[in-house]
């Protein structure tokens, strides 16, 4: 029988793998940051669902709060770096940037 915890755990796993696929596959730095955000979504959902149905719900919620703050901060810094890269190289394609560097 499926419970809501099982469903959320499965969804979180799929989200994490979708995000990792996007990070490794995308040829745009914006998409890389967005994929990272999807990984953070999956991690948040996994942390949250681990506290469902047990006594550790408050602990899980606290961990999700930490994860949201850290994920948001990392993403803001990543987007700032993207602006700098675009100013410097004029493109967001990592392969083009590597070519222009050498």
């Amino acid at each position, binding site marked *: 029988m499926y419970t809501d915890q099982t469903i959320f755990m499965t969804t979180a796993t799929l989200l994490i793998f979708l995000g990792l696929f996007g990070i490794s596959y995308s040829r745009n730095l*914006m998409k890389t940051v*967005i994929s990272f955000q999807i990984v953070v979504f999956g991690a948040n959902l996994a942390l949250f669902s681990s506290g469902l149905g047990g006594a550790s719900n408050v602990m899980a919620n606290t961990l999700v709060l930490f994860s949201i703050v850290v994920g948001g901060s990392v993403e803001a810094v990543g*987007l700032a770096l993207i602006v700098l890269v675009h100013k410097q190289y004029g493109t967001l394609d990592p392969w083009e940037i590597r070519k222009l560097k050498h």
Partner: protein
Amino acid sequence: MVTLATEVALLLSVALLVTVTAAMFSRSMSVTIIMLFYASLILGVIFTLFQGVLVGLLHIITFAGAISVLLLTIVLMTGESNLSIGNRTLAALIGTITILVVLASSYPLFGGMVPTTETTAGSTMGLLTFVWTDRPWDLLILIVVFAAAMIGIVNLLSEKK
């Protein structure tokens, strides 16, 4: 026996996966950001409905609010937004999603289901019913304005590469 909480969890999970997949595999960066906004919103709703109101609200404020606006600004600054105005297929898709969201949001207003059943986790899903009982039309209009503003900003400010 499948409870209401499990059905809601399944529906929200499917919606989350669909929006995230659309965000990942869309060629237009504007569509990606719109889908990511909806994914953030759905995840916030999941947290809120399953005994994590504070986490859900913080998630919506951070990701659906601040980070979405930040992403939109960066996309417009770098000129990566290549949403062509007048794309009928895209307009029909966004319009259908908006209508579905509005219909789903207005469902409790017309005597539909208000989730008050206890979940398996012991959380009360009727926690947010005070919003619908006290200020229902405000919330509905807010949702519509939020969605319309997101689509409008991307459409008006997008530029072709």
